[in-house]
């Protein structure tokens, strides 16, 4: 029996849906799946985890309560739980939170870790990931007593498979961290999180100014999409850095990426090329993105986007 641990991420008490692809990737014959929940569990979460085939739900606590959030304490607790249950493989999401936890866990266990995997084979201990700004795909093999993989959010399709799960508690012993969490500052970027979004509308140089981004926000609202931006739009100060997609911004894998007035540099593609579908709207038919997308519209985005918003609104009603 191969025991696989999955570090579950929650947001406002709900399991982020990107976890479900990670659980799907973990399943396999002769495997027992342990989901680690760091900030308590409720029945809804249990239902979700059962629907995707988790066998054991581990509530990681200290004394009798969830461990106060601290990336060092949480990482210590997860590695202790892995050792306690005899789990040698850990999967998690390679988003912002995973980037702050998985490498800490790997470093604590002195174990190999591959971040941002687009595919994994847990029997062979191999993972695929892009390198060199998305220009190559590497197949990497981890060797050692433990194997850790951070999965790119949305890279692996979630498929349900019901399994009754037991809830168990694990009490961790938290040592001094050397790091104190002082404050959480809420962001100004409203709405849907880029790395979680199914649909992203992104704007680039073609948006021309900050005000015009409201066109994208309006349209995004109709489909529950997140709004992203190219480096140009961020460097010009039109939108905050938190919205930047690309080499020096966020890496995203939505189902649909609608690029508006974005030329499509290598650096931009590094952040969004694994989108399942790319739709490009650009008045320059020669823009690089028009040759690297699924659908392109060679027209003025200031005509197309309002028309799209209107059509989406009509469809919703």
């Amino acid at each position, binding site marked *: 029996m191969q025991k696989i641990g999955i570090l579950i991420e929650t947001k406002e008490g709900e399991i982020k849906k990107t976890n479900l692809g990670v659980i799907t990737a973990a399943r396999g014959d002769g495997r027992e799946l342990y989901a680690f929940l760091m900030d308590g569990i409720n029945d809804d979460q249990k239902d979700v985890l059962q629907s995707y085939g988790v066998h054991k739900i581990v509530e990681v606590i200290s004394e009798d309560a969830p461990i106060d959030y601290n990336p*060092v304490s949480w990482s210590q607790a997860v590695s202790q739980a892995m050792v306690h249950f005899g789990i040698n493989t850990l999967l998690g999401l*390679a988003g*912002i939170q995973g980037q*702050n936890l998985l*490498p800490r866990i*790997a*470093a*604590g266990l*002195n*174990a*190999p*870790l*591959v971040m941002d995997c687009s595919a994994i084979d847990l029997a062979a201990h*191999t993972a695929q*990931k892009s*390198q*060199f*700004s998305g220009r*190559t*795909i*590497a*197949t*990497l*093999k*981890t*060797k*050692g*007593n433990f194997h850790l993989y951070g999965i790119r959010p949305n890279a692996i399709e979630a498929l349900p498979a019901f399994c009754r799960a037991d809830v168990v508690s694990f009490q961790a012993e938290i040592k001094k961290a*050397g*790091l*104190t969490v*002082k*404050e959480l*500052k*809420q*962001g100004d970027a409203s709405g849907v*999180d*880029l*790395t979680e979004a*199914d*649909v992203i509308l992104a704007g680039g140089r073609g948006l021309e100014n900050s005000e015009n981004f409201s066109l994208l926000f309006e349209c995004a609202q109709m489909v*529950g999409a997140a709004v992203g931006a190219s480096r140009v739009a961020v460097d010009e100060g039109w939108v905050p850095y*938190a919205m930047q997609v690309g*080499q*020096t911004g966020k890496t995203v894998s939505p*189902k*649909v990426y609608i690029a508006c007035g974005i030329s499509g540099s*290598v*650096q931009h593609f590094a952040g969004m*090329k694994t989108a*399942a579908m790319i*739709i*490009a709207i650009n008045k320059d038919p020669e823009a690089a993105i028009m*040759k690297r*997308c*699924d659908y392109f*519209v060679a027209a003025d985005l200031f005509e197309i986007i309002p028309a799209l918003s*209107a*059509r989406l609104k009509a*469809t919703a009603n």
Partner: protein
Amino acid sequence: MRVYVCVKHVPDTAARITILEDNRIDERVTFIMNPYDENAVEEAARIKRDVGDTEVIAVTLGTQAAEATLRSALAMGADRGIFIKSDDHPDSMVTAAALKAAIELDGKPDIIFTGKESIDSEGFQTMYRLAANFGIPAASNVVTLSLEPDTVIVEYELEAGAREVVELALPCVIGTGKNLNKPNYPTLPAIMKARKKEIKQIDLEDLNFEKPAGRVEILELKPAAEKRQPKELTGTPDEVAVQIVRILQEEARVLHD
């Protein structure tokens, strides 16, 4: 203070990547200092300017060519360099162990800076491993930093523009994000001066460290395939909008009731 900055020599993002023997790239292309490491060097130089009485030591692990990146760090404000020479590109576990051994041989760090990630292997982990090897705290993707008497207070980015503020006891390891500062590119006199700065060279094999318990091997490297076949959508704006809605509904299945 004694500040170490770990920098990496990486292929330019604009370089054409050619794969050799299915497991490595042709390195006869332009290399640069990893862009996030520029923020690391700049922050160390800023501390030197603000605090005074600070020595900044740049450290790199790489093949002979990596000396160029070490010289860039010296031109950007580091006082001297440590060059761990290697014939190949070890994984992050060996790299972190070697960096720790080389820094420890040299002196006692107060802060160690790295970039938040390297744009070649995109591993996101060496800073945490380095910190674990030293038994000191780490934070990465740091976008503000203020130095206190025995600690540093930093902010790093979370989702949707949120930020977490944390305090780390010194010594510590900091992975610098893009928005921490604006790197000052070196002037010609600074470049000339950097040529005379001291670089201590150590062969990777001569460093004394315990072999890590695990490793990551490259089984295969392939060019990322371009599978998309672009189709044009034409018509009036409204006709195009109708087609996009249909694609979102029927093909991508992202429109829900």
